[in-house]
C-alpha cells in the first residue's frame, strides 16, 4: 500500500528527472557543435528564411491586436483613478518587456516548433537521419545546429518588429478611439520607454527562440515510429516549448527586474 503510493509518486518524478537530463545533454551537445566545423551555411540560410522571415506576419498580427487591446484595457482601468494619460507609456513598456517576447515566442512555438518536429520526425521515421549518418554527415550539425542558431538570432529581430507593431496598434487605437493626440501619444511613448525595457525583451526573445528550435529538434530526433509517432512528437514539441517559454520568462523577469 505504502510502497504502491510511493511508487506512484516516485516513478513519474524519476521519469521527469530523466527527461530533463536527456534534454540537458541534448542542449549541451548542440551548443558544443555550434562553433565547430563543418558549418552548413545553406541550411542556415533556409532556416533563417523559414523561421525568421515567414514568421513575420504571424508575429506582426499578434502584436497589432495585442497592442490595440492593451490600449483599450489600460484606458478603461486608468479611468478609474484619472490616469488615462499613462496609456502610451504602459502600452510601450508592456509590449517591450512582456507581451512582445512572450506572445511572439508562443506564436513562433506554434508555428516553428511544430514544423521542425514534424519534418525531423518524418526524416527519422523514413530513415533519412540514418542515411545522413551513412553519408558522413552528422545530423546534429546538419539539421539541428542551423535551426537552433537561426531561431536564436531571428527571434530578437521578430520581437523588435513585434514591439514596434504592437506600439503602433496601441497608437492607432489611441488616436482613433480614445481621443489621444497623435504627437502627444508618440512623445509619451518615447519619453518613458527605457533602453533596457526593449533590451530585456530582446534577450528574452533570443532565449525563447533557442527553446523553440531546441524543442522542435529534440522531439523530432526522438520521434517514435509511424504517423502516430510523428504526431506525438509534434504535439510534445509545441507543448514543451510553450511551457518552457512561460517558465523561462518568469525566471528571466526575476533576474532582470528584481534586485
Amino acid at each position, binding site marked *: 500500500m505504502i510502497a504502491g503510493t510511493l511508487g506512484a509518486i516516485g516513478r513519474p518524478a524519476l521519469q521527469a528527472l530523466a527527461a530533463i537530463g536527456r534534454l540537458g545533454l541534448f542542449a549541451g551537445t548542440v551548443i558544443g557543435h555550434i562553433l565547430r566545423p*563543418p558549418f552548413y551555411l545553406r541550411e542556415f540560410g*533556409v532556416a533563417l528564411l523559414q523561421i525568421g522571415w515567414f514568421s513575420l506576419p504571424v508575429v506582426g498580427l499578434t502584436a497589432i491586436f495585442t497592442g490595440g487591446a492593451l490600449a483599450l484595457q489600460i484606458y478603461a482601468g486608468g479611468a478609474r483613478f484619472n490616469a488615462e494619460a499613462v496609456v502610451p507609456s504602459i502600452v510601450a513598456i508592456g509590449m517591450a518587456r512582456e507581451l512582445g517576447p512572450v506572445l511572439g515566442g508562443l506564436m513562433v512555438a506554434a508555428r516553428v516548433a511544430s514544423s521542425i518536429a514534424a519534418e525531423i520526425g518524418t*526524416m527519422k521515421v*523514413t*530513415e*533519412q537521419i*540514418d*542515411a*545522413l*549518418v*551513412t*553519408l*558522413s*554527415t*552528422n545530423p546534429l550539425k546538419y539539421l539541428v545546429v542551423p535551426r537552433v542558431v537561426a531561431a536564436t538570432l531571428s527571434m530578437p529581430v521578430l520581437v523588435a518588429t513585434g514591439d514596434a507593431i504592437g506600439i503602433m496598434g496601441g497608437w492607432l487605437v489611441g488616436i482613433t478611439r480614445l481621443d489621444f493626440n497623435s504627437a502627444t501619444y508618440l512623445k509619451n511613448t518615447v519619453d518613458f520607454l527605457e533602453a533596457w525595457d526593449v533590451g530585456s525583451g530582446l534577450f528574452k526573445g533570443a532565449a525563447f527562440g533557442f527553446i523553440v528550435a531546441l524543442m522542435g529538434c529534440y522531439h523530432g530526433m526522438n520521434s517514435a515510429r509511424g504517423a502516430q509517432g510523428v504526431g506525438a512528437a509534434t504535439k510534445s514539441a509545441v507543448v514543451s516549448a510553450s511551457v518552457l517559454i512561460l517558465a523561462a520568462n518568469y525566471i528571466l523577469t526575476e533576474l532582470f527586474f528584481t534586485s
Partner: protein
Amino acid sequence: MITLSDVHKAFGANRVLQGVNLTIASGTSMVIIGGSGTGKSVLLKSILGLVRPDSGMITLDGQDVTAKGKSGADRDAFLARFGMLFQGGALFDSLRVWENVAFRLVRGAKAMPKPQARELAIEKLRRVGLKPETADLYPAELSGGMQKRVGLARAIAAEPEIIFFDEPTTGLDPIMAGVINDLIREIVVEMGATAMTITHDMSSVRAIADNVAMLHGGVIRWTGPVSELDATPDPYVQQFIHGRADGPIESVR
C-alpha cells in the same frame, strides 16, 4: 573482410540478436535472409554503428568498428568506405534528385565543385537507368521504383568498397524488382565491391548472392554458398525458401 562475433542486441525485453557469428569476405556478395522482424536491419545497422550492439565484436579488416570514443574524422573515414541503399530509399525530400545523389561528393574534405558533382550524379543516374531529366526533380515527384534507383545511385556515387542493400526489391513490381536485382549484381561485379543485402525475396537471393546466411531466432541458422541453398537439409531454410506455412518457423509472430 567483415566479421561479426557473438553479437548481441536487445531492445528492452525483445532480444533481437542473440549471438550472431558471420564472416563476409571482401569482394563477395552476402545475402541475409530471414522473416520480418528477425533483426536483419539491426544487423546491418550495427555494422555501420547506427545501432550499438550490447556485446560482441564487429571488425572490418581486423579493426574493431564498435570501439567507443572514435573521433569525428575516424568515423568519417570509416563511413566513407560504405554506401547504403535504404528500404524506402530515404532520399532527402528537400533536395533535388541530383543533389541527393551527389550529397557526399559536394561535402567533406574531398568536396568537388558543384557542376562536376552534378555531371557525376547524372552519370550515376544513367547507370541505374534514369534519364538526365530526372536530375532536377524532387524525390516526391518520382515513383517508388525510381526512388529506389535514385537511392541506388546515391549509394554508389562515391564508389564505396562496401555496399549495403536493405530490402532492395520490397514494394516493387516483379519486373522492376528484376531490373534492380540485375543492377545490383552488375554494379557489385564491375566495382568489385563487397555487398551485403537483406531481403526476403527469393528471386533477389538467386540473382545477387554469392553466399547466403539465414537469420532466425537471433542467430545465424545456416550459411553457405548460394549453390548449396537448395540442397541443405535444414528445415528452417527449406521452409523459408519454399514459403511453406507449416514447419519449424512459427507463422504467428
